[in-house]
């Protein structure tokens, strides 16, 4: 399910089948041009990934809007904020919360995260539309899909 009206309508009619949410975690920083570049590239990448993943598991998993946060530091504050997101999500009958990110910064907070962290090392630049990249991303999608299924 995607975050759009038709899908949500379907969700409200079949809630018992959709017990999983996926949230992309997206850093936002504009300080230097290099950061800008990497940020935008990884945003695109992550969106591609989660969209493909959503397609595979659409009947059981809802893709939520991205959780956007300021870099460089993931502070106490940020952990509180993400916790409040999770609380909001739990107002619907979801059992599994997955966060997907290319930002390794979350790794050390993994234990306190209100869900399962899917961290993937990503490249800093490249051509997302090349055939090689397509294969690479498809590969990541398949592995992530299997990982999510192992939690069901």
């Amino acid at each position, binding site marked *: 399910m995607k975050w759009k009206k038709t899908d949500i309508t379907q969700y409200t009619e*079949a809630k018992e*089948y*959709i017990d999983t949410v996926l949230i992309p975690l997206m850093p936002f920083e504009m300080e230097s041009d290099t950061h800008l570049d990497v940020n935008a590239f990884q945003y695109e990448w992550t969106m591609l990934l989660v969209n493909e993943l959503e*397609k595979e*598991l*659409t*009947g*059981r*998993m809802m893709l939520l809007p991205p959780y956007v946060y300021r870099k460089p530091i993931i502070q106490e504050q940020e952990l509180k904020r993400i916790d409040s997101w999770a609380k909001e999500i739990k107002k619907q009958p979801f059992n599994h919360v997955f966060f997907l990110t290319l930002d390794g910064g979350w790794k050390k907070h993994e234990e306190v995260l209100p869900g399962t962290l899917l961290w993937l090392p990503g490249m800093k630049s490249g051509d997302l539309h090349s055939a090689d990249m397509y294969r690479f991303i498809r590969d990541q999608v398949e592995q992530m899909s299997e990982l999510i299924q192992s939690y069901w």
Partner: protein
Amino acid sequence: MSDKKQQVSRRQFLNYTLTGVGGFMAAGMLAPMLRMAVDPVLKESGQGDMANVGLSVDDITTEPQKVDWKITQVDGWYESEVNRSAWVFKDENGDIQAFSPVCKHLGCVVSWGGSDEYPEQFFCPCHDGRYYKDGTNVPGTPPLQPLDVYELEVRDGILFLGDAVPREGA
């Protein structure tokens, strides 16, 4: 004197402009309708065309294999590339079959032999939906219809696939 100068009265002027604007609006609304009626190209919009999926008929075996290809789709606001895929194999009569991998329950992607317990079936990981090799849904599992079937064509030994078409329920 002043009568002569004021050849167009305020009322007339308003009337002219309103007719003009109305005319424009009507034309704006009618033109696309007319175009759709006369221009057959618009009706197609890329769908219904057969696409080369890059698979030679000789490479199709009795074991279902997944093929992926891309089509251009006009989707409301913009034109985009859409990935499509199919499970392709030859049935016991030697006829080529191409099934859509989209589960008829809630749309997850099914895979051939995806479950270790049922290696000879299509399996949906989301709610354990299953389909027999001929695409019919296994009763008692969530899906209520067989997998959609692609329109297919063989040109010069190469497989071409069109749209996926639903079948009757089992």
